[in-house]
Each structure stands twice: as structure tokens, then as C-alpha cells.
């Protein structure tokens, strides 16, 4: 009998040796005359266990990890192919691993489970059910279902997807576009990458549904160039979907058209901002456009355009397949459904946790994440990317909900959580926030372009102990100017990490005593 094994092809798993492990398993099996089939799946998102090897058994998939190529002979000796759990690396049934078991995976239901490019087996896993349902509905009904589900943009601002879609739907017919924002530039985020590498079909399906909903026949996916594996996987998946008739001139035999174009970014954080992304897709410098008009009315090439994040679009199929009420049943307050959180940085169990809104930071960092990787005390976490606020230990019981975070001077953003232990210097992190803005500003407005440079210099003075009080005040002033005078959230939100660091960790900003003039 053929033994079926899974070794991820996710680039993070490969970054710690998954290719060598897959090769070692193939070699060892050949040497022993064993009949094996190795499936290269996406990642389950338990990165401290990567490379995670799974074996199919009658009881379910059994996991081993983290596996190194050198471990393979001993794993075979210990009955790997039968999923015999007698090895130091054996983890039991994959689905029973607490990190995975306590999640609520809707968007990520198939990531790490399936071969991301095996279209033939997709329907067995519920693939394309959402698109098939959408093909039976008219555009207005699809928009209404998305609105009813409560789905809000997962890329940062949390704007209701249904309202955005309806705006585009209500524009006069003609050329319209669906643009998927796969720029994912935030530190601490990798969920978009995992979807694209682990279940690209669900994203394409979501984009096609969006096209049907608003009357757009062309979709663009803008993927950052730092993600070569995701780009290759998305291109391959689009090709397979087209061959199977799920993309192109007659999707699913419906007579409806949806074409997908994969485009690369070129290393500019600001191109994640939607209007800057549109400029970039038009082949221009990625400078931010003034609003209004909003992209829903005047978007790509001046046409009505839906711009949504990868996770937003990848969540659409499950909503259509299982119904708006099913999705709405998860979450709290006005934050409905589930949110893929990403645990990163100095954390023992880093990875992807998809959970209904409302889960606390403490549950995420301590229960799922297992605390710091260094074993030293937790000191701070930055939530929501480089423009997100720092939180301290006293804020860990915050429930994850858009409004709740906003009310506490913080933001959820794309759901990245970057953990720091007590060795972090928060003045250095505040300085870095300004430096990052300096490097990545599109340069269009003065508060952001110049403010970031001045801010960095001023924090450096504080770090050196020069006129600390006056300079702290200057930073606060500068932050106010950036917040109020910037055209977009790059300059407008850089004050978030800076001010939160100053507010919560004042001791790091005046450790050096004031020096008298020398």
C-alpha cells in the first residue's frame, strides 16, 4: 500500500529545510523499497514545528516535527510510514495539537491540509462551492450576502466589504476592476502569503465572486516582489483555473467572464496603500492619490474598482458556501467572523491563529504563543504592523475587536502581533518607527516626508540625553502635525507606535541623566 506523506512547500517551511526533508524521505523510501507518495501541502502555520511532516493513517493525519533531514532514517525505523507514534519528534494527530485544535479556521480551512495546486481534489474539500452558489445569484444578491455576513476589510481599516462592493455594483455598467491587495508589507504579517502559497484557489474564487457581484470582468492581484514563491504559486493556480474553465470567457459554463492578471510590486511599502497600489498597477510611481474620489468610483485606470485585501477576498467563498448567518455567528460586537492573527517575533510558538474576534491578546500570546522565545519576561507587543501601537502587559486582556482597540489607542490592522521581551529598548523602537516612515514615505506631503526625518533626529537626541523634556515635547508636537497634516495613514499613523512607546514605557526615554553643558 502507498503511504501518503505531507511535507510543506510553504516558503517559511522551506526556509528551515522542508525541501531537504522531502528529498531525504524520498531517498530513504527508495533505499528501503517502500512505496510512498509525498504531497507538498501548504503550512499548518505552526512554524516552530516546521518542517512538519504528516502521515495519513486510518485515524487521521499524524504529525512529526520539527523534522531535519538527518532525522529521516530514525523516523523510518520508528514506523513513520504507519504513523506509529514512537519517536521523539512524534506529535500525535495533527488536528489534536492544542495550537491547531483551539482555532476556528474558516478562511484557512484548507491551508496546510491540501496540495495547493491540486484542482482535481479541490471539490472534495469544498472548493468552488462559493463560486457555484454565486453563479446562481445576481450581483445585488451577492453584495447583500457579503454585507449581511458582517465581513469587514481584513487589510487594516476594517471597512465593510459589502458597502464597498455595493458602491461599485451601483456604478453604471462598463469597465470595472477587482484589485487584490497582496502587498502585505507589515512586519509580523504573513497570512496573505500563507493563503497564496497554501490555498491560492480560494483567493481566485473570492476574486471571481467579487467580479460577478459588481460586474467586473478583470481582476488584478498585486503581489509584493519579496514573495517569489507566492507569485509563482498564484500564477500556476490561475493557469490551472483557466484550463479547467473557472477563469476566462465562460466561467463554469455560465457565459460570464472573469480574467485574472498577476502583477509584481517592486519593493515599496507605500504601495500597500490602496491608491498608491493603483498608481503602481498603472505603471507609475506609487504616490498616494488624494481622496475623494474613492477607488470604488474612480479606481484603476479611472474606472470603478473594488480594492480588497487577500484575506477579505479569500473569506468570501466560505460565506457564499455556508451562508451569511453562519459567518456572522462568529465574533463580537461589530467585528463579525474570524480573524487570522499572526504571532511573530520573540514568541515560542510563532504562527497563524485564526480565531473568532474577541479572543484576547493574552490568550493569543500566552496560550497559543507560549510566551517569549527567549524565556525572558514579556515587555511589549506591537499589534497591527509598523503603524500600529505598542501594548504593554497591562493591556493583554484587551479583547480583539476593531472598536475596542480603537477605544484603547491601538489598532488591529492586518492582525500581526510582534512580541518583545524585556531586553527591548522602546526608545530605539520609536526611533525606528520614524526611520521606517523616512525610508518608505511616498514623499508627497511635508509632514510625513520631513516630519519623519526630524522625528528620528529628535528621538536620537533624547537617547543621548540632550534636553530630554523639551525634545519629548517636540516629538509630541511633531506627531500631532503628522497625524493631522498627512495625506495618508503612513504619515498619519506613524505617531501610533511612537506615542504609545512614550506613554507606556517612559522610563526608556529619559534613562540618561541630563548633562550640564560641557
Amino acid at each position, binding site marked *: 500500500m502507498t503511504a501518503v506523506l505531507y511535507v510543506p512547500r510553504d516558503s517559511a517551511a522551506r*526556509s528551515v529545510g522542508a525541501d531537504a526533508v522531502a528529498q531525504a524521505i524520498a531517498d530513504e523510501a527508495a533505499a528501503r523499497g517502500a512505496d510512498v507518495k509525498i504531497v507538498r501541502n501548504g503550512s499548518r502555520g505552526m512554524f516552530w514545528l516546521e518542517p512538519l511532516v504528516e502521515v495519513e493513517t486510518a485515524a487521521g493525519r499524524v504529525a512529526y516535527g520539527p523534522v531535519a533531514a538527518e532525522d529521516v532514517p530514525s523516523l523510518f525505523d520508528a514506523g513513520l510510514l504507519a504513523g506509529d507514534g514512537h519517536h521523539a519528534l512524534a506529535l500525535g494527530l495533527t488536528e489534536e495539537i492544542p495550537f491547531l485544535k483551539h482555532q476556528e479556521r474558516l478562511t484557512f480551512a484548507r491551508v496546510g491540509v491540501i496540495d495547493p495546486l491540486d484542482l482535481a481534489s479541490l471539490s472534495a474539500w469544498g472548493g468552488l462551492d462559493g463560486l457555484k452558489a454565486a453563479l446562481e445569484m445576481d450581483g445585488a444578491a451577492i453584495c447583500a450576502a457579503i454585507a449581511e455576513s458582517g465581513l469587514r476589510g481584513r487589510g487594516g481599516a476594517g471597512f465593510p466589504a459589502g458597502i464597498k462592493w455595493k458602491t461599485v455594483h451601483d456604478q453604471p455598467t462598463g469597465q470595472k476592476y477587482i484589485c487584490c491587495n497582496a502587498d502585505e508589507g507589515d512586519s509580523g504579517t*504573513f497570512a496573505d502569503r500563507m493563503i497564496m502559497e497554501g490555498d491560492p484557489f480560494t483567493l481566485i474564487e473570492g476574486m471571481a465572486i467579487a467580479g460577478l457581484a459588481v460586474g467586473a470582468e478583470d481582476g488584478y492581484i498585486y503581489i509584493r516582489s519579496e*514573495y*517569489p514563491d507566492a507569485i509563482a504559486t498564484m500564477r500556476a493556480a490561475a493557469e490551472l483555473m483557466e484550463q479547467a474553465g473557472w477563469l476566462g470567457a465562460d466561467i463554469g459554463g455560465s457565459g460570464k467572464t472573469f480574467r485574472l492578471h498577476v502583477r509584481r510590486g517592486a519593493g515599496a511599502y507605500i504601495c500597500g496603500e490602496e491608491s498608491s497600489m493603483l498608481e503602481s498597477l498603472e505603471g*507609475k510611481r*506609487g504616490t498616494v492619490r488624494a481622496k475623494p474620489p474613492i477607488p470604488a468610483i474612480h479606481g484603476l485606470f479611472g474606472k470603478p474598482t473594488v480594492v480588497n485585501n487577500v484575506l477579505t477576498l479569500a473569506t468570501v467563498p466560505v460565506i457564499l458556501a455556508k451562508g451569511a448567518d453562519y459567518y456572522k455567528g462568529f465574533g463580537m460586537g461589530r467585528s463579525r467572523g474570524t480573524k487570522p492573527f499572526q504571532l511573530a517575533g520573540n514568541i515560542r510558538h510563532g504562527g497563524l491563529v485564526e480565531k473568532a474576534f474577541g479572543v484576547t491578546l493574552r490568550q493569543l500570546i500566552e496560550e497559543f504563543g507560549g510566551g517569549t522565545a527567549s524565556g525572558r519576561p514579556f515587555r511589549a507587543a506591537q499589534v497591527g504592523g509598523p503603524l500600529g501601537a505598542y501594548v504593554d502587559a497591562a493591556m493583554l486582556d484587551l479583547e480583539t475587536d476593531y472598536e475596542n482597540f480603537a477605544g484603547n489607542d491601538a489598532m488591529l490592522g492586518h492582525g500581526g502581533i510582534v512580541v518583545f521581551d524585556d531586553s527591548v529598548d522602546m526608545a530605539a523602537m520609536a526611533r525606528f518607527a520614524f526611520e521606517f516612515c523616512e525610508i518608505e514615505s511616498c514623499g508627497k506631503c511635508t509632514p510625513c516626508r520631513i516630519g519623519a526625518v526630524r522625528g528620528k533626529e529628535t528621538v536620537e537626541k533624547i537617547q543621548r540625553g540632550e534636553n530630554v523634556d523639551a525634545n519629548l515635547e517636540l516629538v509630541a508636537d511633531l506627531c500631532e502635525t503628522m497625524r493631522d497634516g498627512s495625506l495618508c495613514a503612513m504619515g498619519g499613523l506613524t505617531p501610533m507606535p511612537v506615542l504609545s512607546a512614550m506613554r507606556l514605557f517612559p522610563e526608556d526615554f529619559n534613562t540618561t541623566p541630563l548633562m550640564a553643558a560641557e
Partner: protein
Amino acid sequence: MIEAENAPPPAGAVAEATAICARHGNDPAALLEILHDLQEETGFVPEATLPAIASALNLSRAEVHGVVSFYHDYRRAPAGPVVVKLCRAEACQSMGALALIETVCAARGIKLGGTSEDGVTIEPVYCLGNCALAPAAMVNGRLVGRADAARLDTAVREARS
């Protein structure tokens, strides 16, 4: 350390650029893709190709120059045969990325952004989406997780062979 600003174009680069534009239907919206393709072929975006690209896409030279200079990816001069990108964003910093960058640059006797005598270019990058396996690096397009000096040396050796 090899200094490299606006290096002279390799022979045939201008013809190459024109051909790449044609392959993209001389579509100005494809400019980023065109520049990526050119850089893959030529190793950088030679200044001398800009007029040809501008004319093929019906853009001004200033517009093309504006795009090339806006994006961090495009090079004005060739990099070494091995490019090591080291992440210095927050998650990687929390795991000691800045110290790692210093160590790696010092070992090769260069500053961040430079190219060593043995042809290794070391550049900063801001997040590679491998933040749960920080510090992260990328060596000629391949991710390296939990990077340290030894793992990076191995990756550089593999990239050379």
C-alpha cells in the same frame, strides 16, 4: 568594497529593453514588469536603456526615470552574484536582527548595501513574511529562517554552486 553607481550598460542592453517592451505589448501599465524582466536579464536597469523604454511606451524619459528611482527593487548597477537580503523590520529586530546584520557585514568587511570582494551583496529588507521564524533573510530569492551567521554562510555557499 565595490562602488557602483550608474554602471555602463552591457552590450545589447538597449535592444534587449526594446524587445522586452514589445513582449509586453508596449503597454505603459506594464512598466514595473518590464523593469523587473530587464533587471533579470541584465542584472540591473542601465541608465542608457531608459530613452528606449520611454519611446517604446510613449512616456517621457522623466516618467521612466521617476519610476526606476521610486522603487527599492531596481538597481542602477549590478549586484554581486549572490544577494543576501537581511530583514531589519520589527519582528526580526525582536530576535536580534540588527546585531546579526552588524556581524555579517563586519565579517565581509562591508557596509549594509555594499558588495564584498568575493561578490556578496548585503542589503536591508523590511519584512519577508517569515516573521515567526525570525531573524529572516533571503539569499538569491530563497528564504532563510532563524538566520544566524553560520546558516547564512551555508546559504551563500549553496547559492554559488
